[in-house]
């Protein structure tokens, strides 16, 4: 993901702003790290450059 994507993203739970943490970069793109809600502190992983902003309970459903 481009960092500019952050402009339109928010926490799916409380709609507050997200902060990029532990970012790993490749050629100007964020390819790993986490997006953390500035309000509730929930962490959303960035996997292979794609932020996973499913609400935590839906994310946990996943087998893989």
């Amino acid at each position: 993901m481009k960092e500019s994507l952050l402009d339109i993203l928010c926490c799916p739970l409380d709609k507050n702003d997200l902060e990029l943490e532990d970012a790993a970069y490749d050629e100007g793109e964020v390819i790993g790290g986490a997006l953390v809600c500035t309000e509730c502190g929930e962490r959303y992983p960035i996997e292979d450059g794609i932020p996973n902003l499913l609400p935590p309970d839906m994310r946990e459903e996943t087998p893989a």
Partner: protein
Amino acid sequence: MSVREEFDDWATSGRDRGMEERHWNTAKQALMRMPVEPDDTILDLGCGSGYAGRALRATREAGRVYGLDGSTEMARNATGYTDDENVGYVVGDFDSLPIADDSIDHCWSMEAFYYATDPVETLRELTRVLRPGGTFYCAVNYYEENVHSHEWDQFISVEMTRWSRRQYRDAFRDAGFHVAEQDNIPDREVTIPDEADFPLEEWDTREEMVERYREFGTLLTVGVVP
């Protein structure tokens, strides 16, 4: 199976591209109608392979295009189909959009909306993320008047909402949208074999197939945020 597992499965078996091909004939007609201005930010809800967003970038000077999908594998495939740095993908759910208030100019969705667990909540969420004057172009082939779609829910382990034209309009209004348009967009390109070739595996009569594609086609409902 969860929505996510179901569609991860579709994505890894290449069904994202198959859908793109089937949906494109009517999707492109609806996309042409969107009042996209240069630099607008577009959201593609349930983007699958992401073809709609890529088309809006290529033909309408859309500024940034974001595809949201509940399936990580769909988002991964879509990411792989483009190098455009103004196209991005996000994994998220229709009912709790991870999208900031008023951040989107127009939202597109093809054959995806009715998978929402709570479609009315999804509409409310859309009125939040779209700016005033922003539109929601909601295209579906699965709807009440399309009798040929009624059995589709048997082929998928996910709940599907089958609204009528009227129910779409009412739900849009209940959620706070103005309804600007509703239309059946025919698929004029799909090949319909000669009379003599029927019955086919999927179609008993040519008449039914003509009705499905040339008459019912895709139901488009356009909502505008006041």
